[in-house]
């Protein structure tokens, strides 16, 4: 058998296992990127909160302690390899607390809190990147800090950090391979099984790489499409003179050429 025949052989005999591994990888990557974003938004939001002028010394103290704990979380999980975190949490919980985390819960916890640590910094940057005038405009019409964040600042930050969220998803698709250390049967684990059984490292690696690339490339295209959707159309409908009845005749305003006249 030549190189290509061996690849075809792998696909024929291990195709189902590879697809199952790829599915596991994708589920972990998508779920964990989502949970990581939730963690990241929560942490980033707290870290950019300044104590109000009316808050007493106790509230200021609590905020300071919470911020310290969150900074520690971010630094520790960004600063150590995820493979070791996986071993640390998976074996640690069973040895110290006698809790046997299942493969799924362990995998999701580890990747989520790892992603969350990165996302926290991304969200913080996203919030800081919004012109302070946006928040002043919101406060000036009487919005509370919470409303300002929820309605004005976070939607704009989310748009700005979409490329970074995409980055994290793609990193997660690839980095779930470190979970093979705790026995998660994802795509990389499948690769090792195949290569171990057939001694065809080169061919198995090629097939697995192609699958990884298809996954990441598809995701990056989908994310770009979502970004374009978020930007909305580049032109808008000009309402006619009677704006309350603006369903009647519309004129098209073209952003590039300008006016309608």
């Amino acid at each position: 058998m030549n190189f290509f025949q061996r690849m075809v052989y792998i696909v024929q005999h291990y195709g189902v296992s590879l697809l199952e591994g790829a599915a596991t990888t994708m589920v972990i990557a998508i779920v964990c990127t989502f949970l990581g974003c939730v963690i990241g938004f929560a942490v980033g939001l707290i870290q950019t909160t300044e104590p109000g002028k009316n808050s007493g010394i106790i509230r200021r103290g609590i905020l300071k302690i919470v911020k310290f704990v969150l900074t520690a979380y971010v630094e520790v999980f960004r600063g150590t390899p995820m493979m070791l975190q996986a071993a640390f949490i998976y074996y640690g919980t069973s040895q110290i607390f006698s809790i046997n985390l299942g493969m799924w819960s362990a995998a999701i916890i580890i990747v989520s809190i790892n992603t969350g640590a990165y996302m926290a910094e991304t969200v913080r940057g996203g919030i800081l990147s919004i012109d302070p005038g946006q928040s002043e405009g919101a406060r000036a019409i009487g919005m509370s800090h919470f409303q300002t964040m929820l309605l004005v600042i976070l939607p704009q930050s989310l748009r700005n950090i979409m490329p970074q969220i995409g980055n994290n998803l793609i990193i997660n698709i690839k980095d779930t391979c470190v979970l093979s250390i705790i026995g998660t049967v994802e795509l990389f684990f499948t690769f090792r099984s195949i290569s171990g059984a057939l001694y065809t490292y080169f061919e198995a690696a090629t097939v697995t790489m192609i699958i990884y690339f298809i996954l990441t490339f598809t995701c990056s295209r989908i994310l770009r499409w979502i970004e374009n959707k978020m930007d909305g159309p580049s032109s808008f409908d000009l309402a006619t003179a009677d704006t309350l009845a603006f369903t009647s005749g519309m004129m098209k305003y073209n952003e590039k050429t300008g006016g309608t006249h």
Partner: protein
Amino acid sequence: MDSILKIEHLVKTFGTNEVLKDIDFSVSKGEVISIIGSSGSGKSTLLRCINMLEEATGGKILYHGKNVLDKQIDEDQYRTKVGMVFQSFNLFNNYNVLDNCTIGQTHVLKRGKEEAKAKAVDYLNKVGMGQYINAKPRQLSGGQKQRVAIARALAMDPEVLLFDEPTSALDPEMVGEVLDVMKDLAKSGMTMLVVTHEMAFARDISSRVIFMSDGKIEEDGTPQQIFQSPKSERTKDFLSRFSG
């Protein structure tokens, strides 16, 4: 006369830099007050302190007799009554023109969607932006943005509108359209406090002119008093720069 706002001994310092030194004045219903003065005289800081975007260091801001600097006063509620129009517009970039004018009404004033929309469209028509309800801020010119910003502030039904150099960031050709809107507003009886470099507006439209210099109110009077017979040397000196 019944005053809406009364500023007493207002002081603002940034570190050791005293930007506002013992400011005293009051604003009555229907007054259109222009605040003029050279850059760095504290005009904008005064306006930002009144809207509480800057925290005053000392003194009182009385709104219908209540000091809004007291901790018990709900500052968000106060801000709905004292609208602000900014030099850099500060329209919400993630919403279209209509939503910019309704979001405060629905989320802060808890008005119904239909009522908020009707009100927003009404004010947008008044500022000549009714056609643009579907546009995003990035699709508008500076003058258009500022007119939407004025409609946004008006839709909250404020008692006083503060204008912080509303035409300073505009191309010369767009200054007129914004000033026209402000003129109409002044005529309709709106109480306005306008920090401006537009001397013609201060002279012809406002009912009262305050000249600020070095963090203090140097002179306060009718446009005729200030422009035709200024008492202070500093006022004369400042105005002479415009009469070229």
